[in-house]
């Protein structure tokens, strides 16, 4: 096996083997310290493996790994955040009684989430997707509070629904294929000619939208992400939601295009982008606001992918990956930062707060930050029509939401001015923050096709600058309405769904009653007789 193939294989297999090693009590007791190492092979693979590198494992594993441009971009960002968050967690949870369990769930989620970016065959994509989805449940309920369990249950219900949608889509996609476990690329190539094309595409969009948290399938996200411990929130919101993004990138027919479904995706994306902001500004908890911001940002990503799908433009996948890596790092840094702020007092608080301000506004597209880069890079894709305007406005909305976040965070300072974060937590945060600023710059020329110098032209600065001002202005208006806070419960329309509960319960009770009746002896006997007559009659008539 060649070195690149070996490195690729290590992406999922290294963390998986760490998880397996946790079967040993001795290892499990010490595994927390290894959280930081687990994603490093992925980072190395993203940097060192040439694009197009692949590895194929023979049966019974039938695993194919491929690294392409979008995959590499996403993998690099994700691995970095996982590693940093792992270091943070190692420091934060050193004394947590449940740390051993946490470690195992962490390794498993990590395996699935990073593996998804490189896996090339259908079956293992589904396997890793499932692993990432279900193992994340362990992270969400880690704190064992009733809200955490409620969030966990809702999360699992919707994750399973996503699995089901995805499974049927994959089965429909691969049904006509001679190979039982075909490569994703080849089945997607055949998709255009499939008679079930529309059905497959809509199932994929639904399944991955659930994972990304597009409205109205987002309800689990603002519940689940804040429920987890801070480092877990960071990776859930930063990386794990990208499973949906990579799914759409992998499985939608960007080369053949699908104008109708592209516009559907755009529509859903725009709605989601605004919806996340609107509900986000009514929230009181910083982590929940960040979660809503994730919802909104995923909407923007959906728009990018929708445009690519509508215009049959495979380039959109690269841009979406670029945008996604910006979001991964910034959102991760923000979540970690919330944890840092809570244990920082005095002068240091102001410093950290300042950095947090930069990160937050980066999401809104502040000039010279990764957010601005991402927005500039994607601008040509969006063109100059209503959509570009809508996206710019959404940027303003993000700014608004982030300013709201900063206003909330103001009060997070530790009471004791002398408190300062542990180095083990502070350094990872700093690394992610720095990376969120540096990595997008270094990738920009390759992705956008123009030199980084073009970013500092006044024109470019203005392009990204004015929505920021608009957002700030909006914040001034919104602030005059303090009653908004807490107006909408976390998870918003999940409350509506819960009103359906009595109906479900009565349906379930009805089934219970029917069962009691069916299990009475005469009823079952009559059923037996009726079945015999039915079957016998049918067979006789046919014979």
């Amino acid at each position, binding site marked *: 096996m060649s070195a690149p193939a070996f490195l690729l294989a290590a992406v999922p297999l290294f963390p998986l083997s760490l998880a397996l090693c946790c079967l040993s009590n001795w290892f499990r007791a010490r595994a927390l310290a290894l959280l930081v190492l687990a994603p490093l092979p992925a980072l190395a693979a993203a940097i060192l493996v040439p694009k197009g590198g692949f590895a194929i494992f023979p049966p019974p*594993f039938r695993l194919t790994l491929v690294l392409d441009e979008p995959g590499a971009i996403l993998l690099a960002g994700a691995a970095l955040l996982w590693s940093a968050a792992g270091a943070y967690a190692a420091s934060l949870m050193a004394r947590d009684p449940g740390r051993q369990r946490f470690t195992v769930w962490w390794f498993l989620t990590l395996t699935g989430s990073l593996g998804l970016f490189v896996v090339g065959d259908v079956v293992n994509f589904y396997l890793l997707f499932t692993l990432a989805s*279900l193992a994340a449940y362990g992270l969400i309920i880690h704190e064992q509070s009733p809200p955490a369990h409620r969030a966990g249950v809702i999360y699992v219900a919707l994750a*399973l629904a996503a*699995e089901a949608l995805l499974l049927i889509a994959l089965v429909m996609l691969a049904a006509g294929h001679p190979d039982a476990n075909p490569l994703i690329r080849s089945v997607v190539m055949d998709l255009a000619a499939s008679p*079930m094309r529309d059905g497959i595409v809509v199932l994929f969009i639904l399944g991955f939208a659930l994972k990304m948290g597009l409205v109205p399938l987002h309800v689990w996200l603002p519940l689940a992400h804040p429920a987890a411990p801070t480092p877990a929130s960071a990776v859930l919101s930063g990386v794990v939601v990208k499973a949906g993004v990579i799914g759409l990138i992998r499985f939608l027919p960007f080369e053949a295009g699908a104008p109708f479904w592209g516009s559907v995706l755009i529509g859903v994306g725009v709605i989601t982008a605004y919806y996340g902001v609107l509900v986000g500004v009514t929230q009181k908890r910083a982590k929940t606001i960040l979660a809503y911001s994730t919802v909104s940002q995923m909407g923007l990503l959906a728009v990018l992918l929708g445009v690519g799908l509508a215009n049959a433009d495979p380039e959109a996948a690269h841009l979406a990956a670029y945008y996604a890596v910006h979001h991964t790092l910034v959102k991760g840094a923000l979540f970690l930062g919330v944890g840092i702020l809570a244990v920082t007092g005095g002068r240091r608080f102001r410093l950290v707060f300042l950095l947090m301000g930069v990160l937050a506004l980066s999401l809104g597209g502040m000039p010279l930050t990764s957010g601005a880069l991402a927005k500039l890079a994607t601008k040509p894709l969006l063109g100059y029509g209503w959509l570009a305007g809508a996206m710019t406005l959404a940027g303003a909305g993000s700014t608004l939401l982030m300013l709201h976040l900063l206003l909330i965070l103001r009060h997070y300072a530790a009471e004791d001015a002398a408190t300062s974060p542990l180095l083990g937590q502070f350094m990872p945060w700093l690394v992610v923050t720095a990376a969120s600023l540096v990595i997008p710059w270094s990738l920009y020329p390759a992705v956008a096709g123009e030199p980084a110098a073009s970013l500092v032209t006044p024109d470019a600065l203005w392009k990204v600058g004015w929505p920021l001002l608009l957002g700030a202005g909006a914040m001034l208006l919104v602030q005059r309405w303090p009653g908004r806070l807490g107006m909408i419960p976390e998870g918003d329309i999940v409350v509506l769904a819960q009103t359906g509960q009595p109906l479900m319960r009565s349906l379930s009770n009805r089934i219970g009653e029917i069962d009691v009746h069916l299990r009475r002896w005469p009823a079952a006997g009559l059923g037996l007789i009726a079945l*015999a007559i039915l079957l016998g009659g049918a067979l006789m008539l*046919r014979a």
Partner: protein
Amino acid sequence: MTAALHATTPGGFLLVLAVILPVCAVLAILACGPRSAARIAMATLAAGLAVAVAITVELVWSGAALTYVVGAWRPPLGIALRADGLSGAMLVMTALVVVAVGLFARVQYGLREGGGSERERTTFWQMLLALWSALNIVFVGEDLFNLYVALELLTFAAVPLVCLDGRAETANAALRYLLFALIGSLLYLLGVGLIYGQYGTLDLLALARLSRPDPALSVALALMIVGLLAKAALFPLHLWLPPAHAGAPAQASAVLSALVIKAPIFLILRLVLDVAPGQVAFLAGQLLAVLGAASILFCSVMALRQARLKLMIAYSTVAQIGYLFIVFPLAAGGAGTSPWETIAWTGGALQLISHALAKSAMFLAAGIVIKVYGHDRIADLGGFGRALPISATAFGLAGLSLMGVPPSGGFVAKCLLLTAAVIEGYPWLAVTILLGGLLAGGYVFRIIDKALAVSASPLPSRAGVPRRLELTALALAIAAVLLGFVPLRPFGFLQIGRSGLAMAGL
């Protein structure tokens, strides 16, 4: 004409051993008394497992079915035993589950406290072995009346297992089970009589050639299939299963749920695919699929509603066997393909095997939980994952297979069935499979959530539960997961010995 159908093959005597060895052990225990019961049983378990493996090896080696003509009296006058690929798979699966449950029982009965009375122990060993014999006959029998005797043997072995603990409540469940199963086997017997009256033979291979869609066969098949459904407890004939399987001790529930109900299903499969002529098979398949789908949906909801762990697992059994019935229309094959070349056939067989492994693991794990907690009220089991990590893991892994989450045998099975539903154009079955998976996810996660939760009360002590006990459950669950590495295509082993039948059926 029919004389050439069966001829003893080399290695055919293995079938006799598979069928007779456990019976010998039952008689030996009866003759030698309770003291040596466990020892005789253990030796038989080892020998039986070896025989099952030898049969499989012989099947793979020769690539053809194994046949034994008992007493050299050829059918139709005599009785033949025959093992094809599917039978071989069933034999090995049965041997694995029986051996694992046997080891579990050995540890459990060896405990100083709660080891059970001598009555319970001896009866368990005898019934377990008799049940094994009966199952093996069902899997290799070729004669319809011989199969009837096997079914009765199975029932008589299963009923005392249900009321092993001697409580009035379980005796009631056992009586209900016995009477309903009795109706089922009598209806089956009636069908056997009609078939003999019409064709003058009871040999399945011969019938595959002779059967024509005439009234006698239609009535016979209807009676036999419905009778077997009653024994398989498919919805809406599941009245006896939940109390019987939930009331029995864990080691008994494990074999009852994992193996016993599979025997009638296996026979239905043989009747529909081998005996019924095309048109009749199609029609019967449709009806069975409707019942199967109803079973999946209805009983999954019921499982979700249960407040007690074992009842939940029992209802899940009724739901899971539903999948075996939706195989019929999916495996119908088409022009030029016989049923056993379809992926649905492989999927059905995998579902049968993986459910057996997963369900036995679940019941054993539940048994350990009950042993430690003294009850199985789900609401009060908070944090049992911390008290019994291995059992909880076994339960979780088995649950993943039931839900159809990869990598597991259940996933491959459901994936194959789903693919078949898509290809064959049965969207309602595809939706059923998906909904069934979701509901299974619901009832399994309800337990997993409990296992991972923190309990309000202090964790009970696990003293008296040796690790070996938990490891047997885990081994079964892991086996169910490992089945997930079977290739996603029609599996060659399952076609061994079937091609000749294809010719016969045409």
